[in-house]
């Protein structure tokens, strides 16, 4: 079982994480973009893949693909898909991070390795040491120096005004960021406290517009970031980092997993405080929201699928070093 620690305070975990990400980006799968297009495309409404079909993707690239595919599978409700805009947001990303953690344990040869988290409410400056070349690399421009400078990606999601957005397959390139350009800042400690104090996990209609009887957004909707437009909490972190953290292929950037590990830590803090509850149950009061229900299978391109019920208690896989939230 791994222990998940702060990426800024645990140098050993940070160095291992960065090394593992680069190793996965060098581990070729034998799967080409053309194969992906042929096997997945027919099942995904609106699928469009462009570029070089002969590009062979790495193990790291499969995570960007998995995320992109899952968010392309719309469910009923506002901004809802099989990974976002609904109750499934937290369980699906828990499964997603778990698979990466297991992959990192394998390539690092460290069965006890735990994914680190970025406590963005604490470490929120554009000039933070997190963005040094020897840590996660620069937060503006292409990341070509330091350990992360060796990471290469082959799938990304451009937007073209002529054809819209598509999944692009290209020759290997470095990741890029464009941090702090807009007016949005990173969430604060007060924001995190507000999340943890939410009484209910989620409210009908279990989408981006979820709202309780007194207008409260519910824990999931607040933490995901839809209750505070144009982007709050988790959403704001993606927008703040920018570059490859913006589109549906955002797992290309290792910062994706640091952000979501912190989101998962806040979920764990909420459940530790208020109980391991989840909605929608799929039956009875509160109704059903297919793709988001407690016992619905989650989209899994790597390893067997799990349900939200399977991941409510992660104790068999990992624990956090610190769940304290200043209230």
């Amino acid at each position, binding site marked *: 079982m791994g222990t998940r620690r702060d990426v800024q305070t645990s140098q050993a975990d940070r160095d291992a994480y960065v090394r593992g990400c680069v190793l996965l980006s060098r581990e070729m799968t034998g799967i080409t973009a053309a194969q992906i297009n042929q096997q997945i495309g027919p099942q995904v409404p609106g699928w469009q893949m462009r*570029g070089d079909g002969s590009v062979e993707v790495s193990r790291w690239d499969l995570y960007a693909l998995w995320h992109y595919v899952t968010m392309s599978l719309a469910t009923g409700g506002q901004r809802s898909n099989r990974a976002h805009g609904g109750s499934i947001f937290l369980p699906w990303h828990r499964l997603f991070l778990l698979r990466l953690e297991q992959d990192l344990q394998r390539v690092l040869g460290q069965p006890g390795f735990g994914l680190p988290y970025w406590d963005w409410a604490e470490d929120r400056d554009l000039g933070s040491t997190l963005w040094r070349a020897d840590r996660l690399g620069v937060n503006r421009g292409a990341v070509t120096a330091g350990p992360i400078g060796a990471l290469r990606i082959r799938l990304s999601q451009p937007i073209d005004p002529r054809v819209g957005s598509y999944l692009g397959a290209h020759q290997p390139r470095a990741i890029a960021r464009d941090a702090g350009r807009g007016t949005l800042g990173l969430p604060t400690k007060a924001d995190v406290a507000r999340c943890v104090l939410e009484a209910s996990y989620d409210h009908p209609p279990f989408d981006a517009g979820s709202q309780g009887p007194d207008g409260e957004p519910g824990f999931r909707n607040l933490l995901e970031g839809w209750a505070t437009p144009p982007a709050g909490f988790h959403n704001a972190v993606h927008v703040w980092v920018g570059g490859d953290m913006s589109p549906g292929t955002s797992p290309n950037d290792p910062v994706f997993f640091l952000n979501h590990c912190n989101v998962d830590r806040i979920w764990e803090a909420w459940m530790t405080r208020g109980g391991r509850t989840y909605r929608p149950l799929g039956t009875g009061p509160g109704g059903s929201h297919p793709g988001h229900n407690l016992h619905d299978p989650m989209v899994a391109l790597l390893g067997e699928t799990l349900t939200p019920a399977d991941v409510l208690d992660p104790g068999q896989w990992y624990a956090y070093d610190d769940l304290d939230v200043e209230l």
Partner: protein
Amino acid sequence: MAPQNEIEVRFTRPGFDVTEGLPAEAHHHGSVRTFEYEGRHVSIETHYRIVIDGVEFPDPIQVSDDGTVHYHGLPQYAPLSAVDLVKVIIDLATGQPLPPPIGAGDPGHGGHDHGVQDRSSHDDGGGR
């Protein structure tokens, strides 16, 4: 426990169902907001037609009950105005030559700019 072996890539299995048995909904080009007020049933339909330099933007833009707009190409962003959204779309456009649809020519090959091709004209077996 760390797995002894590599976790299986499932989507290359023959007949693999990426939806896990829960078929996805089609992407809608319009939004319908419905609510009850003072005993009345209200329905508001919204459809955005966005034209950039004379070319209609093909992807759907949705509006939510709170009036914010959303585009799946910018998955974590929901501004108060479609104008703001389109400005971001233009900012993010690379201006690079458009790569060809994969599978439009020889399977497994590509990389040449064959110009703009509408997604409805693809016949490579990809989903639409």
